């Protein structure tokens, strides 16, 4: 168990900068997930932590000691690769023991350690096989075994589940999470799958184009995205971003939202946005997750929805049942499509006009120009 400190780390290959001042602190026993679209520099950052890539700016500390110049073997880390990278010429047992052998651990001890790990991962029957004779899931386990056997300070995972089929991926996800709970070792885990990130992490670092966009718990990333990129990258379907305009006078401030056909609502500003942050006429985006809408069963008469909700009537364009939920797509205008997650038994069909109430106390407000969230999250 160890803490990891990434201090303004940056990386460039010649003139191309790949990472820009990434600053992350990972406490002992944390499960940090690096997530982001392809090519955003996740693997590069992980390789820098491992010592496989040099650090061109800033520093990386493990247990408060700078390790920038330390070779990978001396950092006491273990890594699981997307390709598993099992040594094809060695049996499973030899694969697992190789790291110990290189560290001159006596043979008897090695065998004991291998047996222990094999039992933990339930791969005892495979110990004498070569990697080519294993299925994808079994290879994945062996790769994990190779990392576990050394009992390192930090585990690094680079998309370890992306070569597995959907069912196995979900199983292994749970298994890795259990292992983490059991061993308590610090983990840095790379994925581009936002569901994996949400389910496994104690904290998530969302990256894009070599920049760290947001660092926080899964809940804070989901509920309070720092900008529109995070809002749309995390969550499936993504957060709805509804254009609105600020109406500000001496006495009050509100937002006006138009939702097609000249229909317009005047709604209150989310509570954690301070009025002095807004100017009259400012273009903003109102961020609402699909499940932050509720179906209102009424006779159509617009009653007072209360200060913290926004009630409106709209036609449903398409419905998409997912099993547990019913996703309804509403076309506000040509640019703006709003997806609403309703109960599977809501009984709504395409073409119906429904009344919805948006939970404004959850809403996130983004500046349309910069894309930054305007909420003051504690």
């Amino acid at each position: 168990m160890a803490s990891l400190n990434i201090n303004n780390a940056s990386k460039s290959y010649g003139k191309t900068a790949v990472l820009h001042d990434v600053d992350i602190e990972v406490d002992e026993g944390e499960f940090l997930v690096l997530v982001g679209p392809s090519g955003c520099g996740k693997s590069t950052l992980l390789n820098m932590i491992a010592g496989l890539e040099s650090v061109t700016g800033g520093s990386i500390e493990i247990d408060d000691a700078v390790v920038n110049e330390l070779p990978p073997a001396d950092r006491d880390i273990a890594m699981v690769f997307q390709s598993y990278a099992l040594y094809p010429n060695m049996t499973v047992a030899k694969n697992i023991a190789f790291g110990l052998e290189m560290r001159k651990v006596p043979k008897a001890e090695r065998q004991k350690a291998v047996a222990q790990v094999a039992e933990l991962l339930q791969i005892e029957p495979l110990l004498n096989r070569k990697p080519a004779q294993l299925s994808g899931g079994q290879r994945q386990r062996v790769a994990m075994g190779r990392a576990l056997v050394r009992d390192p300070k930090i585990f690094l995972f680079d998309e370890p589940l992306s070569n597995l089929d959907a069912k196995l991926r979900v199983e292994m996800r749970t298994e890795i999470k259990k292992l983490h709970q059991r061993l308590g070792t610090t983990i840095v885990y790379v994925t581009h799958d936002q569901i994996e990130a949400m389910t496994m992490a104690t904290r998530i670092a969302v990256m894009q184009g070599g920049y760290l966009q947001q660092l926080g718990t899964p809940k804070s990333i989901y509920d309070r995205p720092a900008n529109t990129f995070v809002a749309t990258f995390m969550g499936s379907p993504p957060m709805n971003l509804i254009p609105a305009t600020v109406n500000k006078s001496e006495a009050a401030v509100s937002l006006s939202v138009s939702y097609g056909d000249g229909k317009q609502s005047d709604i209150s500003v989310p509570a954690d946005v301070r009025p002095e942050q807004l100017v009259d006429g400012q273009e903003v985006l109102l961020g609402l997750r699909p499940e932050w809408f509720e179906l209102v069963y009424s006779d159509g008469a617009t009653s007072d929805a209360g200060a913290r909700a926004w009630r409106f009537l709209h036609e449903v364009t398409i419905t998409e049942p997912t099993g547990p939920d019913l996703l309804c797509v509403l076309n506000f205008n040509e640019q703006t499509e709003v997806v609403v997650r309703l109960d599977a038994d809501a009984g709504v069909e395409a073409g119906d006009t429904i009344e919805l109430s948006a939970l404004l106390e959850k809403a996130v407000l983004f500046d349309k120009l910069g894309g930054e969230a305007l909420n003051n999250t504690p």
Partner: protein
Amino acid sequence: MNAVIDAGAIADTVRRRRRSHLIGRIFIYSGLLLLAAFFITPLLVMLMTSFKTMPEIRSGNLLSLPTSLNTDAWRLAWSEACISVSCEGLNGYFWNSMKIVIPAVVLSVAFGALNGYVLTKWQFPGANLVFGLMLFGCFIPFQIVLIPMAKTLGFLGIAGTTPGLVLVHFIYGISFTTLFFRNFYVSVPDDLIKSARIDGAGFWRIFTRILLPLSWPIVIVAIIWQFTNVWNDFLFGVSFAAGTDQPITVALNNLVNTSTGVKAYNVDMAGAMIAALPTILVYVVAGRYFLRGLMSGAVKG
């Protein structure tokens, strides 16, 4: 009516397909057999002639079988035939060739493997330029390097010696072996190397424990390639080796050209067979790995 499937018509089509397939096969196989016969005939003629006696050769047909397995010609070629001035047969030269081939093959394959490893897995700035230059070595004709090579060997003081010839073959072969190994190692995933580095293996340990055990197909390719090239070399042998240090190819030439009276075709053929035997043996023993090795880079992905 289209509900009823005409079973007869389908059977007909199937039969017709099968027949045309069979005709195609016959055509292909007879072609292959013909070509095989064409290629093996010279070898068979050599082999048969080497077991004949001189009167038999004079009287008989080139393609007739020898009446008995007469090994005199082989014995003569091996230990008694006159080459230039001495009459001790080819055996000394055979061992000369071995003394040249074995170190030259071992060195060029070993360094080729090492070069391929460094060029792919420990990329340094300019690695591709270095590789390009080495590749260039594959396309330099023998004749061009003769004079500079002679100068170099003279400068090193090993002109006309076996080590000198070994050096020439080693240097010439290294571009080919580097090319082989480099292309093979490119297809070995870098993650393996990264993983081994994290496991604590260093430069040599990664090479010997991880890469070399994977490399046998390409090692065989490189060995066969180098062995046949060095063994069959004539030009470097005749240029850079003197007198009794000459390789068997040069000696064979001298044997055939040293004419004292009647031309002993059987001895010439036996000598040629002796000179060709090691390469044939290498192919027979390792040949089936050759193709596999050549293909393996492509299949791996």
